[in-house]
């Protein structure tokens, strides 16, 4: 059963309560500090450990990745697809390294699992695309962070 709260006459008188409410609104409007910023002119400073767009770290132009498959193993979203291969200067390397970024949940577990310090999440967060993008190896090899 719904119990109606008891109200006195002033509370039942509509106008008083409306004016009180407007008072709160005006106070917030005029005196409260603003929480928004003028993006993209203004930008927030994020932590160095922010987990944004992926990249594969390279040392002297050679990718650190040896296609050990630990990142697809640990990935909870199953968004990493690697095919391993062999080439003269590297016993095992990823022929294909794809991240289905739409599935990625940016948990950073791949970064944590990587024994070769290869896969990294940069601080770039502007990743919107007009197509359903899968990040290919060439795209991931752009060094876009200093982790």
């Amino acid at each position, binding site marked *: 059963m719904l119990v109606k709260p008891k109200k006195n006459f002033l509370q039942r008188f509509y106008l008083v309560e409306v004016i009180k409410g407007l008072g709160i609104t005006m106070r917030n409007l005029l005196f409260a500090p603003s929480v928004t910023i003028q993006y993209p002119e203004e930008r927030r400073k994020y932590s160095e450990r922010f987990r944004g767009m992926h990249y594969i770290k390279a040392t002297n132009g050679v990718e650190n990745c040896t296609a050990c498959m630990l990142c697809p*193993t640990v990935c909870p979203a199953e968004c990493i697809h690697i095919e391993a*291969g062999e080439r003269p200067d590297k016993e*095992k390397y990823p022929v294909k390294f794809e991240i289905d970024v739409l599935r990625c949940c940016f948990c950073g577990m791949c970064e944590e699992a990587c024994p*070769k310090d290869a896969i990294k999440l940069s601080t770039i967060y502007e990743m919107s695309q007009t197509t359903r993008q899968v990040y290919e190896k060439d795209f991931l090899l752009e060094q876009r962070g200093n982790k």
Partner: protein
Amino acid sequence: MPKCIIDGREVEFTPGQNLVEVAKKVGIQIPFFCYHPGLTVVAQCRMCAVEIEKMPKLQTACSTPAADGMVVKTRSEKVIQAQKATMEFLLINHPLDCPVCDKAGECDLQDFSFKYGDAYSRYTEEKRTYLDLDMGPVIKKNMNRCIHCTRCIRFGTEVAGIHEMVAVRRGNSTEITTVDGRPLETDYAGNYADLCPTGSLTLKDFRFKKRVWFLKRTSTICEGCARGCNMTIHQDNNVIYRCTPRENMEVNKYWLCDEGRFNFRYVNEESRVTVPMARGEVDWDAALAAARNALSGKKVAVLVGSDLTQEEAQLLLQFVPRHLGEAPLYHFGTPGIRSPQDDMPADRILKRKSKTANLHGLEKLGLKGFEALPSGTQAVLLVRGGRARLPELKGVVTVGVGVFRADEAQGFAAVLPGASFAEKDGTIVNFEGREQHLRRAINPPGQSKLLSEILMVWANSKGGTHV
């Protein structure tokens, strides 16, 4: 039965059993590298050291037969210390390349290092390295990872019957290699990769294809010959990546020949017909209609591949009299092998001369071996699982049911794609009369169907315009 006490637990054993086996009975794991139940005992890795009461020093469990009243400790202070020291010693020259190594995930060295070893290495000197020679088409060697357990050497001399792996030089510079660096000759070379407790010997065929922890295993039987070796199919996402032997002391012990191990390749092959064909790709209705058209009103013979299961053959025995009249049935499989008497051992280890698994089972069902078509035969219904060698058929209309390569099915009036040994359940009978079960590991690819489904549709549908 005599009893001994391992870690405070009383274990019964049969005299002659060594401590590793006895401990395994009660679920106590004693780590080992050089010991293998199918090979002689050398006790040189020292990993299985255990403490035995009234013995002054630690003993290697693999070379110590259990004795009545023996009191063994496998996790005492002294043993743990010894295991740690052994692990450190074995890992001195072992490279830290598990991310690259194919063995990672099923590697004894990796597992025991995690369980019994130390997480840190004190070794700061340069590790020794080797240049590896090619070892033929099956095995890829990486000597840097070797821990000199000599299992491969013993396998060669004791099982494969060929002394092709040897240890040259001594001590730190020991190298396990083939005699004069020749490629491996044995037909059982795949077992070297299974035996190796590290990633020194790995399969070239499986190299970098898949990490082992992604693979799903299905226990099944090899269809390579009439022995019917027990094996495990490793599959992921409907693709077979490799086959490994499965222990069965009465059939194949721990081994599998290369022919059987790599027999699965045709299952995933590009050229396999997985769409119904009738002079070009058609749908199932049209293919069935073409098949019935091709056989109706003609004198038909039915050739049954001896790679089919008992269940499938039984189905055909019921199907043929009802739908194809008086057509005689013959089995075919290996050229020159027509009856069980022809099926002899092909070598001294496992292989049999009949290169199909169910020759003996089909004989049991009363099928006769194929020699020549009865005179006047106009059409042939060819049913096979994928392994049986097709006989030469000339001047007859042929309808194929089962697994065919595109080039084999050239000229067939119709092909109804069927399931290979990895895609069906069933019973096969090996040369000793032992009934064993095939298990379905993957789904039939494309539009392929099981033989039971094909025959059911054939029997129950009008299937076209011919009648």
